[in-house]
């Protein structure tokens, strides 16, 4: 009780800070320095239609690298922790069979989902969406499969290789930028190409695709590892 | 050249001491309605003891104890001028000033204590602890008084202090600085081994304290000292507070009178235990001394 009250008081204080921020906030009328730069230069410098993607992949590519690393790290740790001391006992309880509908539905949907995912991250530099979104969609396919058969096993090896390879390519492309273009993760290793077409914006689509693959792989490995806790 | 004179002084003082102590004994006895000892008793004792041919020793320090003791007495006597203004009886006062005399008092005490201690007799040790404990408190007012006097006359040389007191009784420290003298006389009582401060030798309680184990010529030597030392000490007092002595008769008179002070007190008061005497000195004598020092 005392704890709740204390928490309440403290949050009241935090709320006061937030309220202060809220009241002090005035929406800016036009773009500030940074945003203006992006708006003006993205297109001709990087040739990406989706400015956000340009920022994510190139301008703030380092963040994205870190972000991908976060996923990789989490997946690794989860793998490490859950792999440790796992007892491979047979399952005690009998899982209820997944319904007919779910099974068939998943068979039908999984390919489509995968297709959608790939489309989303390949076109990340043109349309809304990108590597993370696409990767998430891809992973959702895996999730669907797990829902239908909780005991389904994915090849850890395959996943591991996939995340490793795509990660290495990401870094490799970044270093290429350092060597052949303006700096680490500079997308202008390849020519910008025709604005708005699929093969444009330098290596941006490629990087984003690898991100997509990697994210998909990470999510899948997390899902499977967490799913495998079911059986122990 | 000084040495013969010094020896003469020594001779005079020892004989005077022997007679005077005996006389005071006798007076004390008479006060107590007793007949008392013959005046020459001390001589008899001494000769007898020196003549004793059987004697035992407990070791080196035991042997040296009396020597220390007597050297202390003799030294004290010879380091202060006995007769003011006479070159002959200035003794060895050139060697050091008042401070030398003050600290040389302890020479005998310490040596005696060491000797007595080696005898291994518990009474000796007990007597010594009592003696030393009482001394620390008794010496304090005296030291203060000396400091006061030294400040008063701005010198530490005994001769100069005496010189400063010449020209009439009223120039004596006794009158120019009564507080100091009062403090000093109190401490004088404490150092004369007479009641109420004689618990160190304390007949009945512990048979004769530190000297318990001493006998024959050892004892004789200490008796010599007992005759010599009080006089030597009184000489210091006389020089510091009572204008010194210009001639032997004056010397004899003053010494006798000063000695009588302790004798009077002695016959009147009962004996203090050590802690009592310590408190007594700290409470009554020391404040006087402090006043003397501050007011000078």
């Amino acid at each position, binding site marked *: 009780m005392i704890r709740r009250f204390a928490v309440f008081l403290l949050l009241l204080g935090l709320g006061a800070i937030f309220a202060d921020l809220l009241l002090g906030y005035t929406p800016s009328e036009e773009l500030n*320095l940074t945003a203006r730069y992006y708006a003006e230069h993205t297109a001709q410098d990087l040739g990406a239609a989706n400015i956000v993607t340009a920022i994510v992949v190139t301008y703030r590519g380092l963040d994205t690298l870190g972000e991908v690393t976060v996923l990789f790290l989490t997946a690794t740790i989860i793998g490490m922790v859950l792999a440790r001391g796992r007892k491979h006992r047979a399952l005690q309880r009998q899982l209820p069979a997944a319904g007919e509908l779910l099974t068939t539905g998943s068979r039908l949907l999984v390919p489509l989902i995968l297709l959608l995912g790939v489309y989303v991250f390949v076109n990340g530099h043109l349309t809304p969406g990108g590597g993370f979104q696409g990767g998430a969609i891809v992973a959702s396919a895996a999730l669907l499969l797990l829902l239908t058969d909780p005991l389904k096993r994915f090849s850890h090896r395959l996943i591991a290789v996939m995340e490793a390879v795509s990660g290495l390519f990401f870094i490799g492309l970044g270093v290429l930028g350092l060597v052949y273009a303006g*700096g680490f993760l500079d997308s202008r290793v390849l020519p910008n190409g025709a604005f708005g077409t699929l093969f444009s914006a330098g290596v941006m689509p490629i990087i984003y695709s690898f991100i997509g693959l990697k994210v998909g792989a990470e999510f899948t490995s997390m899902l499977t590892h967490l799913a495998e806790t079911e059986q122990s | 050249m000084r040495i013969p004179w010094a020896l003469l002084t020594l001779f005079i003082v020892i004989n005077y001491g022997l007679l005077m102590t005996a006389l005071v004994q006798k007076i004390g006895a008479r006060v107590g309605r007793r007949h008392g000892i013959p005046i020459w008793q001390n001589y008899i004792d001494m000769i007898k003891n020196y003549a004793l041919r059987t004697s035992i020793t407990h070791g080196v320090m035991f042997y040296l104890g009396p020597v220390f003791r007597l050297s202390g007495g003799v030294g004290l006597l010879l380091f202060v001028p006995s007769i003011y203004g006479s070159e002959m009886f200035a003794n060895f006062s050139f060697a050091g000033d008042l401070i030398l005399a003050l600290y040389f008092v302890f020479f005998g005490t310490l040596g005696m204590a060491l000797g007595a201690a080696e005898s291994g007799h518990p009474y000796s040790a007990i007597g010594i602890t009592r003696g030393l404990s009482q001394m620390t408190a008794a010496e304090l007012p005296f030291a203060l008084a000396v400091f006061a006097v030294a400040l008063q006359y701005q010198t530490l040389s005994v001769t100069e202090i005496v010189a400063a007191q010449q020209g009439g009784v009223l120039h004596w420290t006794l009158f120019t600085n009564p507080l100091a003298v009062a403090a000093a006389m109190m401490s004088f009582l404490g150092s004369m081994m007479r009641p109420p401060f004689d618990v160190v030798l304390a007949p009945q309680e512990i048979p004769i304290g530190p000297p318990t184990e001493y006998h024959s010529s050892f004892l004789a030597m200490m008796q010599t000292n007992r005759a010599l030392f009080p006089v030597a000490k009184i000489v210091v007092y006389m020089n510091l507070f009572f204008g010194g002595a210009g001639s032997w008769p004056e010397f004899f008179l003053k010494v006798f009178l000063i000695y009588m002070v302790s004798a009077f007190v002695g016959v009147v008061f009962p004996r203090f235990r050590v802690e009592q005497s310590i408190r007594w000195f700290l409470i009554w004598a020391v404040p006087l001394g402090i006043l003397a020092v501050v007011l000078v």
Partner: protein
Amino acid sequence: MVSPLYIIAVGLGAAFLLGLLPEKWQRAAYGVTLLALALMGWIAGSWLWAFALQGAAPVEIFTAGTQPPFAINFRVGLAEASLALLMALTGLHAALYMRDTLFKQGRRAMAVLLIFVMATCGVIFTRDLFNLFVFMELVVISTGGLVLLSADRRALGAGLKYLIVSQLVSILMLVGMVFAYHATGTLNIDGMAAAQADLFKGGALAFFLMLMAVLAELKPFPANGWGLDIYESAHPAFAALFSAATGAATVYAADKLLLIGGAQWLPLASAIGIVTFVVANIFALVQDNDRRLLGYSSIAQVGLILTVIGQRDLLGEQYYFVAGGILLAHAVAKAGLFWLSGLVAARGLGDWAALRGHPVLVFAFVTFIALLVGLPPFPGFYAKWELAHALAANGQLWLLGLILFGALLEAAYLFRWFGYVLKREQPQAGLLLQAIKEDVALSAVVVAWLLAYLWGELSGQGNLLHAIPLLFALLFLPLDWLPAKLKNGLAIAGLVGWFYLHYPSYDALQLIFAAVMLPGGAIILLASFQTQQRRVGFYPAAMLMFAGLAMLIEAKTSFAFFAAWELLTVGSYFLILRGKHSEPHALSYIVFSLGGAFLMLAGFALAAQGVPDFKIAALAQVAEPFAPWVFALLAIGFMTKTAAVGVHIWLPGAHAEAETDVSPLVSGILLKAGLFGLFVLLMTMGKQQLYGVELTHVMLWIGAISALIGNLLAIFQEDAKRLLAYSSIGQMGYALFGLAMMNHLGWLMALMFVINHYIYKSMLFLSVGGVAKRTGTRDMYRMGGLITLMPLSFIATLIGIIAVSGVPPLSGFGGRWIFYNAIMTAEYRLPMVIIFLAGPIAFLYLFRLIHTIFLGQLKDELRTVKEAPFWIVLPQMIFVVALLVFALIPGMALRHVDAYLAPFFGGQNGLDWAGLTITSEFGYWSPVSIMLIIGVIFATLFAWLLFVNRRAQPVKQFNIVFAGERPFRPETTHFAWNFFAPYRKALGFLTQPLVTIFWETLTELLHSAADILRRMYTGNGQTYAIHLLAFVIIVYLLWMGGL
């Protein structure tokens, strides 16, 4: 040169690559990991080389081929490069240290480790706020993973608590950041710093939230429970990483953030830092788990660095020197200690006693502790010095005081721990030795000494590691395998040689002290020849002390003086600690001494007022209002060393429990260092009034009371060495008194005491030590009657006590005589009363000393005792001769000093040394004739006695008049126990241990307060999160309310 970006790239690439390797290829994976870490280290190192030695300018690294603030950029300069190197190296060592664990956990664990190191480097390099956030999150998550490597299952809980807190942190961070972005239109740190104005128009709160988020990662009080749990439960190697790497990186992040905030936010950082520093140290006092203790200490250190960051403006170009010094010292020491903790099997502090078997490990432990506490010659020492001066010069006295207080606490518990290591009984558990782990730990030692040298070079003060005496002392470390006798010879040669080479350059005063300290020390060291075997650890300690003394005498600047002071303090501490039961006493010694030293530091800093190398002589020019305070601080510092009453309680135990030949060293010689300091102080600063109080008058009283209390307590001791120790307090009281009289003869008397006390106290300690060695006890009442069995020791003691008591004809009288002449011209008379009382009391304990040991009744069990060993007796005999010579011709030593002192008093009332008689304006004194006369009288009477009782025959022990009985039990007749009972009745009330009670209560209060307060760390993750929230809100109310 390779772009620093490759540090990131290599780390990540290797981590991803590990994914490709098959599970089985553990070795290959491990190899890749080590290779990657080494590569990162090499890149960082090459840049460091470039910046440090080739003076390259800091480089900006752009990404995405776009200028900041539109793309993320790195900056690498000296600081970044060195920190990155630190990260990579600790990472590498961690990998080596954790080899077995990593093999068990597989490549995943290695990948996490790599990413951790990479992320910390990223935190250091990046100049983009959001990027900073990303890297910090990476550090958080990888921490979450590495915590689980611990064998300790409780780590799980710790990790969860950490994650919960970090969630809160990231929320604060993000909200703050986006608003800051909105206010400034940029995420670039330098951009924001430039746009400070509009940041604080709209976004002061935003910045506040970000700052809180970053500071929270620094584990400020009270929001740091989670950190402690991690320290306690994590794998030691990771704890090392967490303390060294994470700590350093986050500190640097905070530094960047404060760059945005600018000057007005610095005080906040200082405030939070100092509170954390002090509180964490207080809490650490009551820790008994080693790793948690180290955790508290880490938190404290980081708090200290935060405080320094807050003072960057007033540190100016010293900023990186100071902050870096503290930071690196902390990192290396903590890493080393955590690595050591991996070698110790059990977790209690006492269990570290297992190290005792391995001198090298003990040395490592000492190095780390010295590094942490900031003792010379380590970087922390230089940093502390500069920091104190900067603070004092700018009036930040409260801050300075708090820092010193905290540092003292830290020193206290660290040295207590060291005491356990050397003194507690070896536990069953013992050590888990493993070559690789040892090597890792020892490599930290090497780095520590390298840093020591480096900082010495960088400091403007001259490198302590170039000081010959110190090097000579350190030389004994590698030589410690030699037999003791050989080392002893070398040591003596060193002392005498150094004195011989240097005495021409000394003035009279220095000469006296140097003669007492160096050749004097050599004489005492003769006694050490009787020790057998190797005596490991004795000589480095002893020579460290002598090195300090030698440097102290020659010190010209306040820095040199202070450095020497700390050296001799530490050396003597190690010496004292060697005694069998000296653990608690050595502790109180070091705590008091360091406390005093810190006061001195404050005093010097206050005096210098920012002047670079402040000459000791310049103390004379210190002006109001500082002068009296400087005087007071320094005086108290020195009086702590001379054990003046009030700060004396360390002395008896320390001197009594020390080894036989150490007691004279620390008593006869070490105490003089304090007197030397007081001399220097009084000569330069003279009299000072504080609030109208004459400070020298106060010292006069302190000296008098010390003399009284010291002597009084001495007479009631049953333990011979304690008796002597207390008498030292009294003697130093006299000396202090003489100095404080501020007149010519007073100072002369003080010098007389320097010489006398050295001679007779060393002599007495040696002879008593010899007796104790033979009889196997220090209780005097167990001895008795030893005069015939140990005649030489007896003679030494006899001469000694006659000298101490000041009875003519020996040299003690000279001291008294000068004293009386001195007080004739003293301004104050009342203190004399106390001195007069103290004087005769000395007789009591002196007589007791000689009586109860050598006289009285011999005990049955001691009848076969032999004379003390030759090497212990020899120096005593030398001292006897010295004493007699000095008694005869004191002028030999004193007249020069007399002349030297004259100018300080306009040549007034000096002494006249013409001929054999020494004359003052009040009296005269002729040592030779006194000696002669007394000699003659004594001899004559002795001859007479010999003549009159030729036939005196010695008798057996019990042949005494004892109520007609012959006692056969010496115990019953040896009157020794409670010797001065009547005196206790009369004046016992003066011996109430008020001071002891005071200090004990103080420490007790600190401990119980810590024990109660630390219970706020309930171990509940939620509570910790609430602490964090509370921390934010409280700071908000206090700071933003005030802003």
